[in-house]
């Protein structure tokens, strides 16, 4: 026997193996520990990310307001019949009214500079917003006490996001301004209320007036277009590939294309949209229509792949049964297989749409990154989308936009989570075991 281990007795062999065991199990434990660490790191990233955004954003749910006592000069604003006159309202100096009334609170403040910095405590949009309120509800003119928005810097200070211990020069509010705000705090003439405006208005240059409604509507419109285009196309393409395509070069080409398109960087779809839809067809820039079309091309592969999977999950016996009783291939596919596959298709679509909702880069390419102060009313209006709004705000200098961007992210995440939950619920509910 030339086997070297034969030179070892069975006992010796066992000793060698037994001796090696401890070290080997230790290596194994190290691998297991590495895996656990990796998972812990990944999950803590998630926790840090979410909590970071929450901590930065939750304060945007509140907005500071201060109380101002003023009488609105009704006589200057109505026509002969006593109704509001649109032209007069437009030209009236609302901001002047508000600022003057506010300065009355601090009669001691004299001097040009001081008066100006006092006025800076009030939002530059306060007058405009007061006008909108009165246009909506003229009876407010009888009132004497108004709560108006503070400037974003005061808002930040009220929320503890302005470090008063910094040197005065490095702060956006100087010592005097902070003093005034503190005085107001003592007499409870400044308060924080729920920030309704954030959910009911569109973008603005002033952080305290900026809201996400415009972006949400823009996103909704774009996604509508996406669904209308992508869902039927994807279902038809999937039926074709599963039921009618003959195996061959064309079918292979289609399949390779679909798989590859699913991995093409999203910005490339944006370039396609820019050069074909905007450049060649001259479609409107910044429009949800074009955004939706680009997103449709982008999500098409995802939905096709999901649809094919759910069509394939329907047992062939159903198709065969339909064919057996004399249905045509098309009837079998549309009337018998498709309804069975519907929940799966729906789930795939929701997941695809959720992906599209979070997409930013292709929309930037087709100009949905514009500054839009109106809520869009049609799919050809200039608009922006929720993720793009986040991008725009986080690019702005004001600290207050940072907070709003975080809250907008939270809103976006809530949408995404609910869409994914819906998909999970649908899958659980309609999951069939054949």
């Amino acid at each position, binding site marked *: 026997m030339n086997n070297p281990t034969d030179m070892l007795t069975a006992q010796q062999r066992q000793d060698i193996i037994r001796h090696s065991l401890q070290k080997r199990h230790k290596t194994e434990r190290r691998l297991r520990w590495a895996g656990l660490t990796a998972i812990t790191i990944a999950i803590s990233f998630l926790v840090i990310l979410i909590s970071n955004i929450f901590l930065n954003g939750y304060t945007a749910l509140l907005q500071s307001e201060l109380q101002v006592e003023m009488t609105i000069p009704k006589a200057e604003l109505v026509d002969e019949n006593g109704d509001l006159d649109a032209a007069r309202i437009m030209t009236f100096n609302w901001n002047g009214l508000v600022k003057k009334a506010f300065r009355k609170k601090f009669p001691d403040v004299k001097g040009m500079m001081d008066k100006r910095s006092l006025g800076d405590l009030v939002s530059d949009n306060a007058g405009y917003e007061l006008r909108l309120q009165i246009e909506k509800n003229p009876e407010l003119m009888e009132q004497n006490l108004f709560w108006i928005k503070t400037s974003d810097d005061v808002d930040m200070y009220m929320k503890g996001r302005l470090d008063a211990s910094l040197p005065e020069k490095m702060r956006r509010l100087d010592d005097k301004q902070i003093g005034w705000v503190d005085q107001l705090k003592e007499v409870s003439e400044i308060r924080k209320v729920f920030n309704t405006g954030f959910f009911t208005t569109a973008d603005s240059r002033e952080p305290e007036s900026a809201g996400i409604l415009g972006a949400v509507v823009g996103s909704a419109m774009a996604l509508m277009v996406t669904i209308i285009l992508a869902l039927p196309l994807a279902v038809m393409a999937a039926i074709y590939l599963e039921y009618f395509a003959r195996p061959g070069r064309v079918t292979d080409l289609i399949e390779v294309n679909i798989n590859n398109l699913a991995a093409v960087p999203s910005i490339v779809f944006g370039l396609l949209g820019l050069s074909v839809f905007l450049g060649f*067809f001259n479609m409107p820039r910044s429009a949800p229509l074009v955004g939706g079309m680009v997103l449709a091309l982008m999500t098409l592969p995802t939905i096709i792949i999901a649809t094919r999977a759910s069509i394939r999950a329907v047992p062939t016996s159903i198709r065969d049964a339909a064919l057996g009783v004399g249905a045509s291939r098309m009837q079998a596919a549309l009337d018998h297989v498709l309804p069975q596959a519907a929940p799966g298709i729906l789930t795939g679509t929701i997941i695809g749409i959720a992906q599209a909702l979070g997409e930013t880069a292709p929309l930037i390419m087709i100009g949905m990154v514009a500054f839009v102060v109106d809520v869009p009313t049609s799919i050809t209006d200039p608009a922006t989308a929720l993720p793009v709004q986040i991008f725009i705000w986080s690019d702005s200098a004001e600290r207050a936009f940072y907070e709003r961007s975080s809250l907008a992210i939270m809103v976006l995440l809530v949408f995404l989570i609910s869409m994914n939950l819906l998909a999970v619920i649908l899958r659980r509910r309609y999951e069939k075991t054949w």
Partner: protein
Amino acid sequence: MTAFFTSFTGSLLWLILISAGIYFLSLRRLSGQIQTSQSKPHSLAYYYGRYAVIWAFFPAIIVLIVWTSFTRPLENQFIIQSLSAAYPDLPSSFVDLKIAQIKNISSGLIAAEDDIMRGLADQYGYASDRLSMLRYVTVILVSLIGGMFAISRIKPHFKARVVFEGFLRRVFTFAAIVAILTTIGIIVSLTFEAFRFFTQYHPIDFFFGTHWSPNVALREGVENALDEDVGGSSGSFGMIPVMAGTLLIAFIAMLVAVPIGLFAAIYMAEFASRRVRNYVKPTLEVLAGIPTVVYGFFAALTIGPFIRNLGLFAGLDVSSQSALAAGAVMGIMIIPFISSLSDDVITAVPRSLRDGALGLGSTRGEMITKVVLPAAFPGLVGAFLLAISRAIGETMIVVMAAGVSAQLTANPLDSVTTVTVQIVMLLTGDTEFDSVKTLSAFALGITLFVVTLCLNIAALSMSRRIGGRYE
């Protein structure tokens, strides 16, 4: 009101109405035919209706869409002509603004600032009303003619179902071909614009140039002299530093994502109990579902400053837009991508191989490192290639957290720029569509497309390799 009738939506509504009418007309025609000829129809009645609707709806809707998409450029052409007649020396950068103004004036959104504009707007309004009216009439005519033609062909022995299904089948085929059309669209449009770029800027200078500064104003004096030979007066577009920045950030991302993703996948596939798997897998999927703009926000406003402060603490000069910050956050984004792909690949290694290893007295660890991972190797490489492709094509994180100026450096603490950042920079803001600067973005775009395409194909062929070897 007529404006609505003749608008796109109005025409569409009319089309639907007409189609519905045609549907019922065709059913009546069929039942009349059946009564006179006393014969049984070939198909169910509604197939005859559907057949007629195809003829009433589809040619007309195609006319409507094609007309609309091709007359918009024509309309603009019309405005530009009358504009240049009215303002002979209007700078080209104002043209778009004026066009928008004219359109808005004509639709009553804004008031005209002067009589010339009002006149132009009226001209435009008149022309576009005429065009819409003409479109409306054509579309309705096409629809009616199509519907009538279909109805005239309805007879009981007409095989309506077969014809209808044949039509559907063609539509389905077209739907499947959209995937190919999209790819062709991407390639053709990007190549077309890139080609225009290359007629103005030499491809060799683009692909091998080491200096990237698309804005002439930003160039420094010394390089200016050199650039004159290469780029003329329009900035220099050597993409090597941009590509290098892209690869540096992608490399940092992979450095973060591969170990974490791979070890997480190993744990999930080989050690985790089913319960742990059921909780951890969806949690990691949440990480994958977070939009990239959120990661970008996190990178730019939290991780970037954090790394910078850390650097200050350690006495290092770290850019607040360091490659490290962008790369690290991109790595976090890619973790779930790698872990779920690797998990799939690892669990696809057949049970029999694991049994074989354990049966010989391997520990679980030895089974994983010496048998399972080597068997999964091609698939894992495929997953990593896909991840690299994703990192290279990722846009928002780098747009928000990486720099804009191109530097040829391997120092992760420096600020670098990437292909996608440059594309976004070059194409946002008010740029003319034809400038070299704008066109260079498309040259970058086609490069990006080709690089990611190659990576995807390589990844696909890698993962196919594992499929062939085992059952």
